């Protein structure tokens, strides 16, 4: 169980997963498409994971595998994992995968996540350590939340190493204040 206050864990729970209701549910206006406020059994809906997982455990609904783990994505990751646009498919790809595996016993997802992470991790580190920030945007838009954090960590450590080697100023303005303001007239 992740930390109760962990924002990333909470936002990963917001990802939509396809689910099928097994029981009828009354008085849920937002879930039903018609005006009866009632969801009938066997109706298909997309639910956020936090709701779907609880209903799945109580046998009120059954989750199916989300589209970001479908055959097409698997093949693309198998071919060239580093250049698959995972963010547009699911920006919490790994977190969602981990949670889904616990709910539905699909053994293949685990290895898919591992392969995807291994190939992409290598690429992320190479890009972060070598390239100037000019190359960033296009590549960054492919990364999931987790990978973006890794990328930022890697670039900041490279920057820290450079300032250490060049003997740059060590004391910095507090990060809360935002980017460094250039004084007028310089």
């Amino acid at each position: 169980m992740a930390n109760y206050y962990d924002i990333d864990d909470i936002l990963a729970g917001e990802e939509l997963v396809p689910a099928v209701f097994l029981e009828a549910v009354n008085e849920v206006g937002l879930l039903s498409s018609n005006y009866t406020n009632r969801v009938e059994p066997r109706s298909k809906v997309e639910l956020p994971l936090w709701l779907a997982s609880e209903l799945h455990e109580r046998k009120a609904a059954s989750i199916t595998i989300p589209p970001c783990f479908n055959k097409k994505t698997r093949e693309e990751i198998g071919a060239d994992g580093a250049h698959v646009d995972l963010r547009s498919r699911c920006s919490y790809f790994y977190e969602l995968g981990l949670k889904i595996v616990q709910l539905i016993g699909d053994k293949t997802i685990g290895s898919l996540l591992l392969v995807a992470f291994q190939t992409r991790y290598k690429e992320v580190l190479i890009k972060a350590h070598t390239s100037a920030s000019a190359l960033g945007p296009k590549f960054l838009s492919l990364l999931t939340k987790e990978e973006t954090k890794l990328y930022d960590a890697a670039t900041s450590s490279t920057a820290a190493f450079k300032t250490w080697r060049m003997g740059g100023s060590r004391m910095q303005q507090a990060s809360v204040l935002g980017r460094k303001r250039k004084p007028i007239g310089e």
Partner: protein
Amino acid sequence: MRRRFPQFYAHVDKVFDEMPVWVVTVVKELKDYWNSKMYGRKASQLLKELVSGDSGQLTGFNNDLFKQVIEECDESVHHCQALLRKMQEEGTSNQTNKNPDHYGALVHHLSLVRNKRCLMAYVYNRAEVVQNLGWTFKAKLPDAIKMKLSSEEQKYFTNHYATLQSYMKDLDLDLAVDMLPPKDPYIKVRVLEEIGYVSLGDQVGNLTMHAILFLKRTVAEDYILQGKMEELTN
């Protein structure tokens, strides 16, 4: 898709660019409306806003959305209680019988718990940043930051800062200096803002903009953290 039909999308972009402002706002509001049509969606927007900035940065406290989420919570409670009452009247036990009302109440209960978690996380994570402010700034916050805090958070900052100060007083040690191991007691700095006459430990100095001077490290550290000076190296 974009790559496959570049001309079509260029056209779409052009149409969007030429739309009057009010159409754009209406489209955006409609989109927001549809996006909010799911339990817990607003609360997650609140958190997304929090993480969208750079790490360690604060966004303004979103009172409006915060209130809307609380309203959603109230609605959930209302629905949940209505369903439970209905079940009691019909005499069905809520544990064993799997009736639609039971699951309806469950959905509302779950979304209530979910919304609570989102709100708690929002306040908690902001509070952590506010705590760190106590180490960076002396009792007076810059206005740019003060604006972003809710009145409760400002109170929290004042109290936290007072606690920190009394602890340091007990220790008889200023814990907020020398966050980096010092190499030299004096450093060369450039003044970035008009500061005026201030006490510099052993003397009083006039700090004008662009002045370059040697200062005691402990004195300069505060100003650097607040962005009023920068360290110069040669």
